[in-house]
């Protein structure tokens, strides 16, 4: 199932499918942060800001940014 990262709940996991932004610089930034298709992510927290586990780091993202990241839900 494909959803936006902002639709995942705490503890749910996904595999990044696409980054939906037209802004080349922002797109590049997300790629460089490690959000490229195929990366596995897990939602640690959603309020007040999203906290995403990505490999061995955690990255804080706001809801808007999470809404641009499309993931395949992989939670069992």
């Amino acid at each position, binding site marked *: 199932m494909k959803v936006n990262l902002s639709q995942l709940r705490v503890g749910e996991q996904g595999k990044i499918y696409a980054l939906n932004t037209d802004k080349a610089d922002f797109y*590049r930034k997300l790629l460089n942060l490690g959000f490229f298709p195929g990366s596995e992510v897990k939602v*640690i927290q959603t309020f007040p800001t999203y906290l995403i586990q990505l*490999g061995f780091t*955690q990255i*804080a*993202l*706001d809801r808007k940014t999470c809404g641009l990241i499309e993931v395949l839900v992989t939670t069992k």
Partner: protein
Amino acid sequence: MKIALVGSPNVGKSVIFHHLTGKYVTVSNYPGTTVEVTWGQFKWGEEKVEVVDTPGIYSLFPISGEEKVTRDLLFTEEPDLILHIVDGKNIQRMLPITIQLLEAEFRVILVVNMMDEVRRCGIQLDCNKLSKLIGIPVIPTVSIKKEGILELKRVIGEWILGMESWSNSKILLNYPGEIKLNIQRISGMLRGKYSFSNQSMALFVLQQDGEMLKVVQKTENQRTYDRINTILEKRMTGDKRSVAYAITMTRQRKAEQILAKCLELHGAKNPYLQRKLSQICTRPLSGIPIVLLVLYFGIYRFVGGFGAGVVVDFLEGVVFRQWLNPLFTTWVERLLPWDSLQLLLVGEYGIFTLGLRYAVAIILPIVGTFFLVFSILEDSGYLPRLALLVDRVLKVIGLNGRAVIPLVLGLGCDTMATLTTRILETKREKVLTTLLLALAIPCSAQLGVISGLLATVPGGLIWWLIVVGTVMLSVGYLAGKFLPGEQGGFYMEVPSLRWPRPGNILSKTRARIEWYFLEILPIFVYSSVLIWIGQLTGLFTRLLSLLEPVVKALGLPAETAVTFLFGFFRRDYGAAGLFDIYHQGILDDGGLIVASITLTLFVPCLAQLAVMIKEYGIKVGLLITGFIFPFAFGIGYLVHLLLSIL
């Protein structure tokens, strides 16, 4: 001989820089604290080796201001050797930068730092094997514990002595068809000499890197440049995004292929305790009380109570007033029997009796205690968690969580903080933060003095908090509405929590205090001299008489005009002046509230104005100041009216 330290934010570049050169730059557990390059040097045998520390990068293709600083440095300085420092836990994400550096044909040593955390997370990384795979030296280190530094120095030394024969690593990257073809075409056309390899230049050009395109246009002849443009327009089917994607992913996959042969992740996980602690700081229910505790104990009790209270009372009240000032005054009066010279040195605004006393006895204890607290917060990794918590609040004023670092640092020194606005991404965020720093964020000296004085007035602190807070929120909100540009999204790496190491904290606090002291002391001395000249020529009194009606309109005694004039030289100087005036007993409770509020909002000091102009140009600097000046007095007047009605 030049060595550059390069790496992503928060991987320990500055600590390694310190181990190599003995110099300290502000090291922290917060992405983006090195906003400028720092030079240092060491000697290896007879050879003098220059070392430069650079701001963190996520890629050689710069997006934020500090990334640009780093790439410009690599491009113009052409270092003989690069130490690429990575966080071992996240080597998968960072190895692509090594690949980019090798593509640019730099000589690179890969330093895999934070090996202790790597082991604790259960990651097995075979550095020897990695070294063979990529063909460059790979040195494992734990920089904060000095592990591996000797080995690193040995390898650098071998290289300097020419014992190590460097063959450029030949990592073959298989870019997708169209890109590969165009890389070959473009790199074949380039005739100029660049610090980066032709392949690497071609990659920047293909990604339409504005700056590199300009460099190419300047270096190559018009025909070549036109041909390159034709390729960009006609021979590339994808948009900027898809080109960036293809290039990034090719490097990423290459990195993964390499690491698949030397990295094992069996059951790797972040340690439990660290995870729990981190959660406590980031969940609002436990996080907000923690913020309040940090503010109360760290700032109010320690900086305000201990620094601005106990230490200042001792240094100012006892050391200077009772011992040093009388002693010095007697000496000067005996040795220099000229009135005007006495006035300059030990008069009411004398270099010694006022300048030095303000700097050493009032400002230093406050700023010192603040920097100590700030260093602990920084090194522990708490600040990114704070950024995450307050992101939503900052969005109201047109900013986002990233602005936490300059804003909190501003509570120490607004000038230093204005410099760090570079870590913000858009011009809009930078200017907005600069405005709020200039207007509503008191520096530690102001905060210390003001909170100390206002604590004696019933309701004083509340008034001050409400007025300054409202001003900050409403000005931020309105400016956020009117400034052009879109509100940037918030994203920030949250590094693992670490126990701050006392040694690091102390040297870092010392480095900051030194920076600060060297910055303010001359200004304090000049101010005394300027005031002295003003006094001799009568200009000072005239300026004061201009300010006096303004001050009187706020219901303040005429003497406070001096304080405001001081405040313009240095914020903290003004705060120190307020302290003096209050102790003369000529300020009533209402006056103290009005003066504190106006002084907090009142113009950025000279140093801050200078930095504003340096970073954002004379127009922005003057606009901000021109807005603040009448605005601060206007608010002061309103508060005065309100207080007299109540």
